[in-house]
């Protein structure tokens, strides 16, 4: 139950469009996990929040991750909690999937696959890009 009671110190204006761009594979560094922590925290602040998995970030979506074998939190399982945090705008880069020869595993039913043009449009419609 982290970060439950934050955020009442400033008045927030109209929601901003924030896109987390996740480009990191899940376990080689903690960046992928840190990005998810930031996303879960952000979900408490009524912003227009979305996530795009691109490049090695798509490796976070592979099924059957057994991260306990390397003493790490399971990224795929954390991702499966996103709907409970009302995070529903999830996108993945079709080209990144194809290039790596992987099919969608975790949260596949909730995620929208975007061709390059559409991905590019998504990026340029934001107020801020949070690069992870």
């Amino acid at each position, binding site marked *: 139950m982290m970060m439950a009671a934050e955020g009442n110190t400033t008045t927030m204006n109209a929601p901003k469009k924030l896109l987390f*761009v996740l*480009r990191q594979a899940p376990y080689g560094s903690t960046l992928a996990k840190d990005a998810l922590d930031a996303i879960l925290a952000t979900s408490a602040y009524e912003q227009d929040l979305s996530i795009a998995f*691109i*490049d090695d970030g798509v490796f976070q979506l592979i099924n059957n991750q057994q991260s306990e074998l390397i003493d790490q939190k399971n990224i795929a399982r954390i991702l499966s909690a996103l709907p409970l945090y009302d995070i529903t705008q999830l996108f993945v880069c079709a*080209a990144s999937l194809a290039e790596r020869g992987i099919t969608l595993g975790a949260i596949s039913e909730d995620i929208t696959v975007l061709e*390059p043009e559409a*991905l*590019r*449009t998504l*990026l*340029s*419609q*934001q107020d*801020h*890009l949070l*690069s992870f």
Partner: protein
Amino acid sequence: MSAILHIVNQSPFSSTLLKQCMDRFNNDDGLILLEDGVYGAMSQHPYAQNVRNIKRCYAIKNDLLARGISLDDISDSIQVIDYDEFVQLTIEFPLSHSWY
């Protein structure tokens, strides 16, 4: 549709970062090469041709000179800038994305 200022800090000789950035590049976007990213400004680098096609490509002067890269050795299409100009570009472009 907002133009994006892409910021790249890894060498294209050791990382595919620059390629990944260029794959998402729009005509009206900008590219800043800094830190080891400035090796991407050298005319010999693997994507030199692509970078040449970018209208607005910039490299941080001090990062080039610190690495012994002569300003004569970089592609003609690349503008050499300082941090004041870097700040100006982040204002001119409504969005920035850091590739690292």
